[in-house]
């Protein structure tokens, strides 16, 4: 069984996550990136590469493959920055959505099957690898706190799907639950987290 303890995702020292400006700045940076501004891209990199890489590591596990996927994602951000629409969500969300989809594509393609099967054997990252400064408008402590407010089953379903990269039928199989109960559980859990985090819809 894979290590899916949600606590894994909160290994950073509390308070080690300084805010580096709000989402608006990132949105503005992406607009500059869309116009080919390389320094703006570097600033986006500084703020989001850690989260993108960490998320991809969660899903893909293999460090070399994760780095490859992370590079693809960041290049994608550069290439498609003109398609970012702040009306549809925050810049961080846009980037993390790309990152997650790419990671999922990687683990669900058959070539990655073998690597994925090795995941259990892969050691967890050492704590000094944990980013000390990441963009975190929703900071770790709040996320940890809000995850803690879910039922065990909600938390397990969400972490298996999001960090584990499993499809919801796979989550259902792993947890011995019905498809509809997994759907409901995940949605209810995310709604509860949304309310806890104070995210506007």
């Amino acid at each position, binding site marked *: 069984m894979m290590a899916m303890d949600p606590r894994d*995702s909160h290994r950073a020292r509390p308070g080690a996550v300084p805010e580096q400006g709000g989402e608006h700045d990132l949105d503005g940076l992406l607009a500059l990136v869309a116009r080919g501004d390389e320094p703006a*891209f570097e600033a986006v990199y500084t703020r989001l*590469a*850690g*989260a*993108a*890489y*960490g*998320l991809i*590591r969660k899903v893909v596990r293999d*460090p070399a493959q994760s*780095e490859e996927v*992370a*590079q693809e994602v*960041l*290049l994608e951000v550069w*290439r*498609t920055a*003109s*398609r970012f629409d702040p009306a*549809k*969500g925050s810049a*961080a*969300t*846009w980037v993390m*959505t790309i990152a*997650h*989809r*790419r990671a999922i594509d990687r683990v*669900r393609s*058959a*070539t990655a099957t073998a690597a994925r099967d090795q995941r259990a054997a892969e050691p967890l*990252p050492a704590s000094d*690898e*944990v*980013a*000390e400064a990441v963009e975190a*408008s*929703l900071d*770790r402590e*709040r996320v940890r706190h809000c995850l803690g407010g879910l039922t065990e089953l909600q938390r397990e379903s*969400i972490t298996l*799907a999001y*960090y584990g990269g499993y*499809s919801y*039928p*796979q*989550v259902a199989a792993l947890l011995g639950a019905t498809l*509809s109960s*997994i*759907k409901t559980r995940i*949605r*209810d*859990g*995310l*709604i509860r987290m949304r309310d806890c*985090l104070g*995210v*506007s*819809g």
Partner: protein
Amino acid sequence: MKPLRHDLHLLSGVYVLDAIDSDTERDRFERHLGRCQSCSSEVRGLREVTTGLAMAAALQPPAAMHGRVLAAVRRTRQLPPAADTQPRHRLWPRWWPQERSRWLPRLALAAATAGVVAALVLGVILAGTQHRLGFAQAQNGAIARVLAAPDARVLTKSTSAGGTATVIVSPSERELIVTTAGLRPLPASKVYEAWLINPRRTRPAGLLPSPRGGKTQPLLATELMAGDELGLTVEPAGGTAKPTTTPILVIPLRA
């Protein structure tokens, strides 16, 4: 077994976690999103939650990644803003972030210089000549990357409707380039659409540009998955999200 509207609505959670593996189910939900204001606003909110989960997983990336990404950025052309004329029925571009299967050619690679360079390079490759492709890299990083990949292979096959398609595929880059010669010209109401056909997920891979002198400019497809086959169908102008006709060509991409 069409789910009720109510059941569709319940998919918002698994949707934002990218946990829907069935194309049919995801497409159906995305169509629903297009009609259901409260659903799309719920999806927007729940996506922000997933960003919190991502942020909580942040790690220090490998130090060398920074330089590699910036080097790649310097040789990669950016996409222009999305055109308003994008066909409405294309599913992936509609929701956000757009374009799950990314197709440079429709958007950026139409640049004539890139096409000319690629065609020249293609000629070199097809002639079987080993040739350094550095010059092409400067012109077009993406196409050059495929052409220069050590594992790039050239596959050629006739279509059932006449003409041939030539594919250069690099499994390591997970990209391929398609060109065609001698395809039957189509009326303006039709277009040749390329697909990455896969039992897990068939993705639209872009529309072939109108042929010039019987040949089409190179089309670049990214994000190949294991087991993909390249397919070509004739579709209504503007393309479709799913193949609606029998492919005139299917080329398996990997041994």
